[in-house]
């Protein structure tokens, strides 16, 4: 089972280490992790996607709550949330593959954000599944570099009314 945790923490040095260390020590999975400040500069939001059985997912929330720098935890299932991740992919192209790549980008709503004589960089900002699909589709051409951020998520608007 997958679960998303949106963890509001005090924006202080060492807090990310405490939170990620907790996952490591208790053998909780981190499928993805993203950090950034919120509208309040004293508060950061750590978004973690984790997976495990029901008991584990419950323990994650309880153990996080015990951490003194943790202010609040919101947890939700994938389908209750809108989640996005950003990915940059650098590919090598030839005259023969160029059109294909552009077509894939168009279909998947990805953007070409940089290019040189034989390489281009593609940006996608979508669900993790979409990013994965883009990688699959580009498998035929030479991918040279990939950078991908962790998933960001917020519960759907209807749920927090």
């Amino acid at each position, binding site marked *: 089972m997958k679960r998303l945790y949106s963890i509001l923490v*005090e924006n202080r040095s*060492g807090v990310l*280490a*405490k939170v990620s*260390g907790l996952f490591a*020590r208790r053998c909780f999975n981190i499928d993805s992790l993203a950090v950034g400040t919120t509208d309040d500069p004293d508060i950061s939001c750590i978004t973690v996607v984790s997976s495990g059985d029901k*008991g584990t997912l*419950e*323990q994650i929330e*309880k*153990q996080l*709550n*015990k951490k*003194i*720098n*943790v*202010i609040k935890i919101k947890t939700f299932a994938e389908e209750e949330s809108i989640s996005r991740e950003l990915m940059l992919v650098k590919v090598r192209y030839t005259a023969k593959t160029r059109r294909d790549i552009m077509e894939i980008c168009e279909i998947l709503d990805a953007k070409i954000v940089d290019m040189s004589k034989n390489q281009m960089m593609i940006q996608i900002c979508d669900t993790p599944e979409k990013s994965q699909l883009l990688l699959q589709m580009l498998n035929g051409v030479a991918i040279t570099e990939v950078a991908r951020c962790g998933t960001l998520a917020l519960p759907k608007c209807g749920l927090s009314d």
Partner: protein
Amino acid sequence: MIGADAVVKCLEKEGVTTLFGYPGVAICPFFNSILNTKIESILVRSEQNAAHAASGYARVSGKAGVCVATSGPGATNLITGIATAYADSIPLICITGQVDSNLLGSDVFQEADITGAAESFVKYSYLVKDVSDIPRIMKEAFHIAQTGRKGPVLIDIPIDIQNKTIQNFRYPESVNLRTYKPTVKGHAVQLKKVSKELGRAKKPLICAGGGVILSGAQKELCDFSHKYKIPVVSTMMGISAMSSSDPLYYGMIGNNGRSCANKAMQESDLLIVIGARIADRAVSSPDLVAKDTVLIHIDVDPAEIGKNVGPTIPIVGDIKHIFNDLAKDTVQCNFKIWTDTLDRYRNAEKPRKKPHKGYVDPALFVTTLSNRLNDRAVYVADVGQNQMWSCMYYVAKSGRFLTSGGMGTMGYSIPAAIGAKMADKRLQVVAVCGDGSFQMSMNELATMAENKTDVKVIVFNNGYLGLVREYQHNTYNKKYSMVDLGSYPDLSKIAEAYSMPYLRLSDNKDMEKAIDDLLATKGSAIMECIIDPMDTVK
């Protein structure tokens, strides 16, 4: 006033009268400041034992124990003691010196990232970077250590911060931690369910853990149990929560527990677990608890509830508070049939097989010793076969039984006994250890001798790391490896070296007299009991 003075001042404000420590340059400003106060600083012989001594102190005084060490190796030496306290939820304030804050992270001489290294064994930690933060940090540290689920808090203070002038020292009246608000009162709706379940149950059982003692709720536990005549069993950490002579107390559960206690766990239809983790050592298999048992789990730490066994009714809060709230309700119930059954189980228990002649029977010894101790005496058990024997045969009156339960740290008993004695000098204190565990902290005999700390040390000498030998005996078909301690040291000479009386007991004949002689000696003393090397727990 400099930072070091401020730290000392905060300790005074918190009512600290004793601390345990070991110096080094990085903590020298602090140890210089302490000279100007009435706080008694006890120089131990190794930092690990400073933490253990602070733990013994905390458990007897009910307040956080304080230990202080220098940077680098001093700080890393503390870690086992910190981890031991963490595992048993003992409140500690651990203060370490640190290298100059401008040099942090550059691997200079005696720099160790102690807040990083100890992260998973502390309830919280601070690296002080600004001298003006000291009062707030100290106030918060004591608050965090002593409330909710108690535990060690580490404060790492670079030497330049200790030496820096602090303007306008003011110790805060209260803490302002928006992210830390432990639950004290149990939820009223949940509490009501307890009465309801009690009214319905036929075979209720209370399983008391260390949390009962940490919350100081021994009396409340007894009152609750007596009111409805509910039988009580305990975990290892819950030993001494209830008196052994109480007819409603059926002993310790677990692998090495009493069979009547384990049978009670298996057969009860309403299990009220209070301040216990129900960890692997206490309940070897989760199905020790019957499938259709209604489980009520009361704990101050919500994360413990449902961690090891699924609870039917969780109640989070301070145990003493919860007992007081439960006492307001009254339900009609009668459990006589159930307690009669348990009494039958108890009476049917077979006595331990007779040990070989010419040795001390550890079971008989523990029973005799604990019977002859003062009512309020503190009995500190070490780790190994000796711990099992102590747990199984200790007779609880109104005193305390201390041991390292969660971590099982060898060498705990002597330093913890020193700390316990320092917390209340009127108490009779004994440390019971194996020959292996004795040698892990016998350096503290010097601390005892120098401070005239009256602790009676009893060594069960079987010439082996007995518990591991027993394990190898059963698991590797008697192929022993790394467990033979041989015959050194000569304990009579060790005692002599520290100017302590030495007593030796080699069989059961003169046991009572020997124990009385030991307890009557003035000041500390060592008693060696010769145990059959092949004696076993099971």
